[in-house]
């Protein structure tokens, strides 16, 4: 990528970048807020809308923070893999490595007052919303320090104060919930939007179309984000969907197809979508992304796709590698500094795991807490004036 000089803007696609095209280093400190213009890897494809431009403005600070955050997320997922294999995490564990660019790019475009709701591949999105590594690992291991007090597990991460609504196990059920969040935002006349995320497998659920119809009918600020990693568990998208162009499925609802491995493309698309949703109602974003792990930890991930395919994507489209090349090309950091960041991420993750292991299992009394909210119903009053209270056996 060429630097944005004041005189000319030479923008080349990333794949042709080479460090020999630069004549001298321009050291930027990571706190520098000069604008760098980056071009997305592929142009956006729009359906019923004018796609946004390929040029995305960013700053060195943002680039470095993207890299750091993505490295942390990648490390967390790999660590969760080994924790699962050593039986500290049980049940279902769906890992997000490969797809980090989607949540990083999204967070960069929105505020913590915009709502996000997703399915069960939620660890990194939780982190992106401000969740800590300790809360993550403790929840995965079922400990008290977890974000849901150990009672939710891998598929039920929530963070109410950051408007992260989880964390849902049943495929597709979170999309009507997401439209409900958007409904509440419209009801309260807020200036925020809701991102309801789902996968290519869930895209075939009927409730999505029902929810989309209602969102479009009432102009709800809902953005439906399809994280298309091309496999619904073991079924490739072409075997499950007659038309895998998920961004076109809205028909009258506009859609945008985005390269989900490019954090800047995601950021641009989400910004565009937020503006659109606040004015015109729902929009569908299809993020073309990929997961390196299988569907979950019980799936090796290689029975329905070849290892060559996985390593091919890892070589050509990995989001962290793309950022690394960008950073090196702009001379924002050296190779060694980037390696140090990754080492630091590893260290943080290891520390969090150690801390999480020390957290105790939930107390027995927790079995019955939070089933109902503050006990039962209301005291009776009024014309009857009776104050009988029922007690459970």
């Amino acid at each position: 990528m060429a630097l944005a000089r004041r005189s000319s803007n030479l923008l080349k696609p990333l794949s042709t970048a080479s460090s020999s095209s630069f004549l001298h280093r321009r050291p930027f400190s990571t706190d520098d807020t000069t604008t760098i213009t980056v071009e997305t890897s592929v142009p956006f494809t729009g359906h019923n809308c004018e796609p946004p431009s390929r040029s995305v403005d960013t700053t060195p600070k943002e680039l470095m923070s993207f890299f750091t955050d993505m490295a942390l997320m990648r490390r967390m997922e790999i660590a969760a893999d080994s924790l699962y294999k050593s039986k500290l995490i049980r049940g279902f564990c769906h890992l997000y490595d490969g797809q980090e660019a989607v949540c990083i790019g999204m967070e960069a475009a929105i505020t913590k007052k915009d709502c996000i709701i997703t399915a069960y591949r939620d660890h990194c999105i939780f982190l992106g919303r401000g969740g800590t590594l300790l809360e993550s690992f403790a929840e995965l291991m079922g400990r008290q320090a977890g974000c849901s007090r150990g009672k939710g597990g891998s598929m039920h991460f929530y963070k109410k104060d950051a408007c992260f609504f989880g964390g849902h196990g049943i495929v597709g059920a979170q999309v009507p919930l997401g439209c409900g969040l958007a409904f509440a935002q419209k009801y309260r006349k807020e200036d925020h939007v809701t991102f309801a995320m789902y996968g290519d497998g869930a895209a075939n659920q009927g409730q999505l179309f029902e929810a989309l119809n209602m969102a479009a009918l009432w102009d709800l600020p809902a953005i439906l984000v399809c994280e298309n990693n091309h496999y619904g568990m073991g079924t490739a998208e072409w075997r499950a969907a007659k038309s895998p162009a998920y961004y076109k499925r809205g028909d009258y609802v506009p859609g945008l197809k985005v390269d989900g491995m490019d954090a800047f493309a995601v950021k641009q698309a989400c910004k565009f979508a937020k503006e659109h949703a606040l004015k015109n109602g729902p929009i569908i974003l299809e993020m073309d992304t990929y997961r390196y792990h299988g569907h979950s930890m019980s799936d090796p991930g290689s029975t329905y796709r070849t290892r060559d395919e996985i390593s091919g994507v890892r070589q050509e489209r990995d989001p962290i590698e793309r950022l690394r090349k960008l950073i090196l090309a702009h001379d924002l950091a050296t190779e060694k500094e980037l390696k140090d960041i990754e080492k630091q991420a590893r260290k943080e993750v290891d520390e969090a795991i150690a801390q999480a292991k020390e957290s105790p299992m939930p107390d027995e009394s927790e079995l019955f807490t939070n089933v109902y909210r503050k006990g039962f119903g209301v005291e009776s009053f009024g014309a009857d004036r009776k104050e009988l209270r029922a007690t459970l056996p």
Partner: protein
Amino acid sequence: MERDVRVCVMGEDVGHYGGSYKVTKGLAEKYGDLRVLDTPIAENSFTGMGIGAAMTGLRPIIEGMNMGFLLLAFNQISNNCGMLHYTSGGQFKIPVVIRGPGGVGRQLGAEHSQRLESYFQSIPGIQMVACSTPYNAKGLMKAAIRSDNPVILFEHVLLYNLKERIPDEEYVLNLEEAEMVRPGEHVTILTYSRMRYHVMQAAKTLVNKGYDPEVIDIRSLKPFDLYTIGNSIKKTHRVLIVEECMRTGGIGASLTAAITENFHDYLDAPIMCLSSQDVPTPYAGTLEEWTVVQPPQIVAAVEQLCR
């Protein structure tokens, strides 16, 4: 709705049409289309929408035009409505009220005459109440709206036309409390919803025959008001459950188990449970009558119990 701006209604034909049983008549004119939302026919999704809105703090009342249609929304009711408070470790509360008419009507056919109390009763995290009179309908509805728990309010198709003088003022009834309809000495008859009227009819006959039944409208289907029920059993030592629910796995079956577990020592006779037959409700009038429990059957059961 006047008291709390967060309360809203959503359902099919609740707004401009006024509700298929006129329950929400006049509300849309007063509060607008967004607060009284006419939804398309998408039960699963609008129930999900209501639950999502509740997660942010709104208090929606979701109407199923007929309780049977809520089967389509079962996933949302069970997994999201009932469980979110628990799986989020207490972060989110779901103060929804899911209501609608159910029960056997006048020859409405099998699919529109379903009794779904039994299907919902195992869902952890929800409360179920059944109203039976205009008085308790108002009180229970207000209580359900004010409750921070998800409440399923079972109404009955044939009870919408009842007229009764009720206080104009605000009153709220306890959601977990049963109602003593007629105190007595010989036998405890537990019932709810429309069967209350059949029981009261039978009670007249029983009184003429010299029996003194105690009739309790249990109202709270989940959890059971074992306090009131227990006190009654300790007095009469005989129990008859009369319900409109299906026999297999119905409310009566659960109630029988609960009573046996807790009050076995106080029983002089095995618990009798009269429920409707395990059949889809037929269309023909005579067959439909035989599907539900009728007063003569109640009288016969009491006589057998008190022998």
